[in-house]
């Protein structure tokens, strides 16, 4: 938006300067030494022409400065966007790697669960066949004692 406005302003000023120049050119120039009034008009017209030109140059200078600032800001914004994009890509890769690891864990748990189920079935089969006791036999509780008294047994 700012660029378009500057361009329009520039175009308007250029048109005004061109119109002024043509108007001065169209006026028949009297000989310089004709009279004082003609000389005064010539001086005023030249000053106006120089003033318009300086105005246009100053305006162009400001426009270029503004364009440079905008370009710099845009470059910084693009750099920031690039950094954010790179960070996002790195984060995404890390997430995908974690998802892959989680998938491996899930697979390992499933395999181990399958093995446990299989071993339980084997144990139950062995217990039914009488090869393995269903529960360890209860051991009699022993209490450590100290012998008191007299004499030798």
């Amino acid at each position, binding site marked *: 938006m700012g660029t378009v406005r500057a361009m329009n302003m520039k175009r308007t000023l250029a048109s005004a300067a061109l119109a002024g120049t043509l108007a001065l050119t169209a006026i028949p120039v009297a000989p310089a030494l004709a009279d004082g009034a003609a000389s005064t008009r010539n001086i005023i017209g030249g000053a106006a022409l120089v003033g318009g030109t300086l105005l246009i140059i100053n305006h162009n200078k400001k426009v270029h400065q503004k364009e440079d600032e905008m370009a710099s800001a845009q470059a910084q914004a693009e750099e920031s966007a690039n950094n954010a994009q790179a960070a996002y890509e790195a984060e995404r890769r890390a997430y995908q790697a974690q998802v892959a690891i989680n998938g491996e864990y899930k697979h390992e748990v499933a395999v181990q669960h399958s093995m446990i189920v299989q071993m339980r079935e084997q144990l139950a089969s062995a217990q039914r066949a009488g090869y393995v006791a269903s529960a360890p036999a209860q051991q009699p509780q022993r209490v450590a*004692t*100290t*012998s*008191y008294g*007299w*004499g*030798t*047994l």
Partner: protein
Amino acid sequence: MRTGNAPLAAGVIAVALCACGGGATSPEKVVNDTTAAVYNDDLNAMQSHFDDALRQQVTIAGVSTLSAKLHAFGAYKGVTQTAADQTGGRYDYTAAFDNATLAVHVRMDQDGRIAAFRIDVPQRVAANN
């Protein structure tokens, strides 16, 4: 008639006397009395069942210590025989208390006196007292 009944009466009396005397000297009664004497910290009653050799080993402090340990299990209730080897004079008993049952081992000499007397006390109680 009178003369014929006299031997029979004498035999009955002799059997009755033997029955009474045998109960008084049984190892179980001796062990029970001795254990009760230890529990009651009664040195004289305890030593009355010991033979001469064992009597030499007894100390007043030893009896008091063992008595205190036995009191940790509550009141004394008596002994029950669990094993007997009459040839070797070895007898095993369980001594019942309110809160525990302890093993008692004795060795008897040929005269029916105690030649060795030992009680197994759990170590947690033995360490506390």
